[in-house]
């Protein structure tokens, strides 16, 4: 049979955006949510748009470590994958509870919620006395064990943020031949620290002005902070390919240091 010459295609049709569907299981409630993600979507974006508190993290499976917030979830999980959202156990005493005076303090910091206003609403009273022996037997006619139902309660679509992180955070950028300089502030719950990032093709040079030494001193990476002139400090952070990732790293360090500082105080 004679083979025919096929016409040559000069124009390649545009590739359509292929989205992925993943299932997020809330590990505390067992409820499921179907999420459609666009290319470039990170774990942090999925959690925030799915309505999870900032303390929640995503985990692939029972033995896996949590997925970093800035990880590109679209790249790292296959279509149809199931990931788990959970928050670590957190118990403890804060300093105002330790006073144990029973009186409401006059000036409360913003984060403090007096416990007595919370745990004893009228409906949350327990009025059933302990049952003495002989112990009762609960008479249940039908007690079939039912496997936990997998219910998809809602479906959302998560798109990656359009703005880079540095721009979202209000940093400004200026460029010269070899370097791009970013100027702005690192934010944490308790501090706002002026910073400057010199980004070149090889690395980022991160500088902060008058960082809270007494707080950062508790952090394991305090050794990476090096004093320079006029109140400026240089941070040797490895593995920051660009300004956005450098801002995320420094803000994370500040957050963690503040947490540690809080624990050391109380």
């Amino acid at each position: 049979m004679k083979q025919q010459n096929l016409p040559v295609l000069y124009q390649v049709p545009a590739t359509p955006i292929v989205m992925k569907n993943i299932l997020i299981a809330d590990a505390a409630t067992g409820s499921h949510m179907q999420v459609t993600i666009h290319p470039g979507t990170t774990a942090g974006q999925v959690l925030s748009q799915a309505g999870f508190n900032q303390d929640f993290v995503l985990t692939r499976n029972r033995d896996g470590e949590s997925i970093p917030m800035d990880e590109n979830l679209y790249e790292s999980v296959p279509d149809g994958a199931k990931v788990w959202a959970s928050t670590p156990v957190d118990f403890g005493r804060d300093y105002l509870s330790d006073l144990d005076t029973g009186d409401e303090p006059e000036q409360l910091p913003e984060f403090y919620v007096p416990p007595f206003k919370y745990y004893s609403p009228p409906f949350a009273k327990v009025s059933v006395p302990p049952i003495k022996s002989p112990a009762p037997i609960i008479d249940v006619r039908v007690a079939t064990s039912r496997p936990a139902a997998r219910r998809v309660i809602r479906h959302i679509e998560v798109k990656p943020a359009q703005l880079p992180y540095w721009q979202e955070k209000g940093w400004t950028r200026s460029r010269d031949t070899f370097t791009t300089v970013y100027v702005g502030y690192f934010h944490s719950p308790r501090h706002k620290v002026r910073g400057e990032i010199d980004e070149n093709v090889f690395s980022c040079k991160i500088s902060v002005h008058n960082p809270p030494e007494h707080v950062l001193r508790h952090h394991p990476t305090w050794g990476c902070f090096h004093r320079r002139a006029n109140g400026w400090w240089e941070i040797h952070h490895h593995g920051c390919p660009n300004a956005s990732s450098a801002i995320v790293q420094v803000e994370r360090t500040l957050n963690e240091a503040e947490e540690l500082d809080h624990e050391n105080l109380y």
Partner: protein
Amino acid sequence: MKTSINLNVAHCPMFIADSWFLRDCVTHHTPLQDEVGSYITGQRLGNIFVLSRICAVDAQVQSPVRFIGTTQSSASKLIEILENGNKLHATFHSHPGRGAGATNPSGIDIRYMAKLQERGAKVLGLICTRDGYVRAYSPLMPFLFIVQGNGVESVEGDDCAYKIQL
């Protein structure tokens, strides 16, 4: 003697534990002076939640006044509970000090519990001291807590606290 409970009576989640289990919980959570925290699960029949199993969580931060579980261990235990067809029923942790007053939840305890309950989890908070006092608390969800068995008495003037004989 057989007593029956009408399941429809419980309009709010009813949590049941026996005094033996609570005694085990107190022992498990007070080995040393540091706080210990864990998840509690068990059977569920409609709106009745039976507390029967301790799922210990590894500590990332542990001191006499603080317990933070590791992210991996917290997730792992919750997934294990779900994979076995159960759900999280309660959280349990110990407090320093003695007496019913020492079992009052702190702001951190309440915030953590509220975080779970805000998402619809029917979860009860339980706190114990090493001298055998146990308190149930819930920031957002109404609940009933029933303790069954011997060696338990309610604390006078405090509906949410019990004294377990160790």
